[in-house]
C-alpha cells in the first residue's frame, strides 16, 4: 500500500483490526476503568463533606414512598387527591363559564336577528361554530387549570421517578422496561408527549411496547369526559361531599383499569410480536426539590392548559361547523346527523353505546377533547336551543330522559374513552417516532380492538344478567 495515497475506509478499518490485535484484549475496559478511577480521585480532592443532615431526610422520605408496603398506597392517595381536587373544583367553575359563554351566544344570536341576517348565517355562526367553541372551553378549561398545576407540583418535587421505582417490578413482569412507568406518567398530560418521552428507553423492543401502550392512560383531553361522566352518572344519586368522592373514585377506577391495560397489553406484545426479555436499567432518584410556584403556574397554565385548549379550539370550530351542517341538511324530516346516527345505532347498541356517541367519536378523531361537546350538540339538534344545559342535573336529564342513557351507557362510554384509538396528533407522532406505517396502524388496531372488545363484553354481560 502506497503511503501517500489516501486510504479508503476499508483500509482504515483493516488497519484498526491489525492494530487491535497488538493491544491487550481488555484495553478499552482498562481505559474506562482508569477514567473512572481518575474521576474518583479528582472528586475526592475537590469535595469536602461536612454533614449530611438533609440527605438523611431525603432518605427517610424515600424509605416511606418507595417501600413495598407503603409506596403503592401513598401513590394511590396522591393520585386520588389530585383527581378529587379536579373533580370537585372543576364542576363549579365549568358551570359558571358555561353560563357566561351561553349568555354571550344568546346576545350574539339576537344581534344577528336584529340585523335580519339570513337564518343559516345566524345558525352556522352561533349554533354551529360558536356553540362548539363555548362547549370546549367550558368543559375543558377548568379541569385542566386544576389538574395540570397539581401534576406539575408532583413532577417538580421529584415524585415521578419514585412512581417509576414503585411500578418497575410490575413492568418487568410484563416484559417491558421499568422506565415505561415514566413515559406513562407523561401520557396523563398528553399521549403525544408520552410517546416522544419513550426516547429515554434504550431497547427498541421495549420502546415500541411503551409507544403502543401509551394511549391506555387517559390524557387531559379525555379526563374531562371521564370526570363529566363520573359526576353526572356514577355519582348522580349522591350529593355534596360524598358525590365528589364517588365521582373521583369512579375516575380513579377507570385510570387503574387503564394502567392495568398497559400492563396486560405489554405482556401480550412481549409474548407475541415483540418477544424478548426485559432489560435492566438504573434509575436515579433525584433529590426532593422545593417546587418553584411561579414556574409551575407558568408551565401548567400558559404552556400546557392554553396549548391544549388552543388545539381543542382549532378542532372544535370546524367540528361545530360540521355538526351544524349535518344537523341542518335533512332528508324528509330526518337530519343528516340523525340519519348517520341511526345507521350507526345497531353497532352502537352492541357496544352498549349508541349511534350518536359513535358519530361524535368519528367527528372527534382530530382531538379527543371535543367528544362530549360534539355529542351534546348532536343530541340537542342544532337550532333548537343555544343555551345548552349548564348544570349536571340538566345534562343528566337530557341524556337519561331525552336519549335513553343508562348506567351501562355511562360506564361503557368511560371505558370506550379510555381504550379507543389515539387522537390524530398522537397517531402522527407514533408514525414519526417509529418511522413505520405498520406500527402506527397497529397502535390504532390494538386500541380500537380493545375498546370494541371490552365494551361489547360488558354490554353483553350486563344484558345477560339483566342489569340494564
Amino acid at each position: 500500500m502506497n503511503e501517500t495515497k489516501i486510504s479508503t475506509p476499508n483500509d482504515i478499518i483493516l488497519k484498526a483490526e491489525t492494530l487491535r490485535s497488538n493491544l491487550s484484549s481488555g484495553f478499552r475496559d482498562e481505559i474506562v476503568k482508569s477514567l473512572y478511577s481518575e474521576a474518583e480521585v479528582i472528586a475526592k480532592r475537590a469535595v469536602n463533606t461536612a454533614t449530611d443532615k438533609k440527605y438523611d431526610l431525603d432518605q427517610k422520605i424515600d424509605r416511606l414512598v418507595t417501600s413495598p408496603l407503603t409506596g403503592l398506597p401513598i401513590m394511590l392517595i396522591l393520585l386520588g387527591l389530585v383527581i378529587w381536587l379536579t373533580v370537585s373544583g372543576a364542576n363549579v367553575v365549568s358551570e359558571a363559564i358555561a353560563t357566561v359563554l351561553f349568555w354571550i351566544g344568546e346576545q350574539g344570536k339576537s344581534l344577528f336577528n336584529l340585523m335580519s341576517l339570513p337564518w343559516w348565517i345566524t345558525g352556522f355562526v352561533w349554533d354551529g361554530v360558536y356553540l362548539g367553541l363555548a362547549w370546549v372551553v367550558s368543559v375543558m378549561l377548568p379541569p385542566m387549570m386544576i389538574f395540570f398545576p397539581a401534576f406539575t407540583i408532583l413532577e417538580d418535587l421529584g415524585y415521578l421517578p419514585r412512581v417509576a421505582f414503585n411500578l418497575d417490578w410490575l413492568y418487568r413482569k410484563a416484559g417491558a422496561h421499568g422506565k415505561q412507568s415514566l413515559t406513562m406518567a407523561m401520557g396523563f398530560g398528553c399521549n403525544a408527549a408520552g410517546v416522544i418521552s419513550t426516547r429515554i428507553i434504550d431497547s427498541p423492543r421495549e420502546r415500541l411496547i411503551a409507544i403502543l401502550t401509551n394511549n391506555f392512560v387517559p390524557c387531559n383531553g379525555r379526563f374531562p369526559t371521564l370526570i363529566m361522566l363520573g359526576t353526572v352518572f356514577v355519582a348522580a344519586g349522591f350529593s355534596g361531599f360524598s358525590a365528589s368522592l364517588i365521582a373521583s373514585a369512579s375516575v380513579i377506577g377507570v385510570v387503574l383499569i387503564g394502567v392495568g391495560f398497559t400492563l396486560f397489553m405489554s405482556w401480550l406484545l412481549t409474548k407475541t410480536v415483540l418477544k424478548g426479555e426485559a432489560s435492566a436499567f438504573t434509575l436515579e432518584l433525584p433529590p426532593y426539590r422545593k417546587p418553584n410556584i411561579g414556574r409551575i403556574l407558568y408551565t401548567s397554565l400558559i404552556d400546557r392548559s392554553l396549548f391544549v385548549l388552543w388545539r381543542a379550539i382549532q378542532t372544535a370550530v370546524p367540528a361545530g361547523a360540521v355538526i351544524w351542517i349535518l344537523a341542518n341538511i335533512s332528508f324528509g324530516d330526518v337530519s343528516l346527523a340523525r340519519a348517520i346516527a341511526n345507521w350507526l345505532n345497531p353497532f352502537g347498541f352492541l357496544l352498549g353505546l349508541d349511534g350518536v356517541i359513535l358519530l361524535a367519536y368519528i367527528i372527534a378523531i382530530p382531538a379527543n377533547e371535543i367528544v362530549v361537546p360534539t355529542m351534546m350538540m348532536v343530541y340537542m339538534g342544532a337550532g333548537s336551543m343555544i343555551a345548552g344545559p349548564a348544570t349536571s342535573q340538566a345534562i343528566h336529564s337530557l341524556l337519561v330522559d331525552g336519549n335513553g342513557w343508562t348506567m351501562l351507557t355511562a360506564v361503557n362510554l368511560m371505558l370506550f374513552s379510555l381504550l379507543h384509538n389515539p387522537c390524530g396528533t398522537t397517531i402522527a407522532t407514533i408514525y414519526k417516532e417509529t418511522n413505520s406505517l405498520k406500527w402506527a396502524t397497529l397502535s390504532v388496531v390494538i386500541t380500537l380492538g380493545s375498546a370494541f372488545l371490552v365494551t361489547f363484553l360488558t354490554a353483553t354481560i350486563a344484558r345477560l344478567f339483566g342489569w340494564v
Partner: protein
Amino acid sequence: MNTAEKNAIKVQLPSEKCDTCPAYTQLEQMGIKIDQFDRVIALAGNPNTGKSTLFNTLTGLKQHTGNWPGKTVTRAEGGYQFNKVRYKLVDLPGTYSLLSASQDEEVARDFILFGQPDCTVVVTDATALERNLNLVMQVLEITDKVVVAVNLMDEARRKGLEVDTRSLARDLGVPAIPVTARTGEGVSTLLQTIAGVVDLSILTTPRRVQGTAEFQHAISELVPMIEDLVPGIPNARWVAIRLLDGDVKVQQALTSGELPELMMRQRRADVQFSGKMSISGRQ
C-alpha cells in the same frame, strides 16, 4: 438583527452578590431569535443536573424543566448575547456517558462530536460530582474547548458539601465555575469564562487518559489516515478509539461516507423546530 436587539429583553436575574456587576447588563436573552449567531455553545451533562434551567436562564425561553432524569430528549436551541457577541445555545439531552446506544444519548454525543461547538459547557451536579466527572472526562477526550459548570451549589451547601472548584479546574485542565442556575448565582462568571474559552484568551489543557504505549502508537497510526479521508474532521482521535474498539456504527459511518455528512447535518440550524418547541413548551 436590529429587530432582535430591539426585542431582546434586558435580563432581570436575582443577583444579590453583584447588583452592579457589568456582566448582567451585558447579557441579553435572545430567545429563539437565532437566525444569526457568531458562536455555538453546547450544554451537556448528566441527566437532571439543571441543563434546561441554565438554558432558560440564559435565553429567557421556557423550555420545559422537570425534576426527573430524561426530561429533555431532543435538542433545543436558543440564543443570548454577551459582550456584543451572539451565541447560539444548544441544550442537549442528559447522558451518563458518550458510549451508549439509546437515542437521546446519541443526540448529545453526535452534536458534541460533529456539531463542532465553539465551547461545550458540561453542567455537573455538585452533590454527585464523582459520577458527573465520568462524563466530563469523556468529553475532555474529544474536545479541548470545555467549561465545567458545577451546578446545584445551593443544594450542595444544604447537604453540607463544599466543592473546591479551583482544585477541580487544576485537575481537569479546564475552567470549573460554581453556579446555581435556578437563582442565577455565578452565571455572569460562567458567561465570561465561556467567552474566554471561545476567543482563546483562556487556554485549556484537558486531562486525557494516556493508556499503554501500544494504545498510543495505534492512535497515532490511525489519526492521520482518518484525517486524510475526512478533511476537517474535528475529532479523529475519538473515531480512532472507536475503531480500535470495533464500534460497528462508526465503521458503517466511515464506509458509507456518512461521517462528513453527519458533520454537515449537525451544523445546520434547527431554528424552526426549536422555535416551535419552545413556544409550545412541549417536547
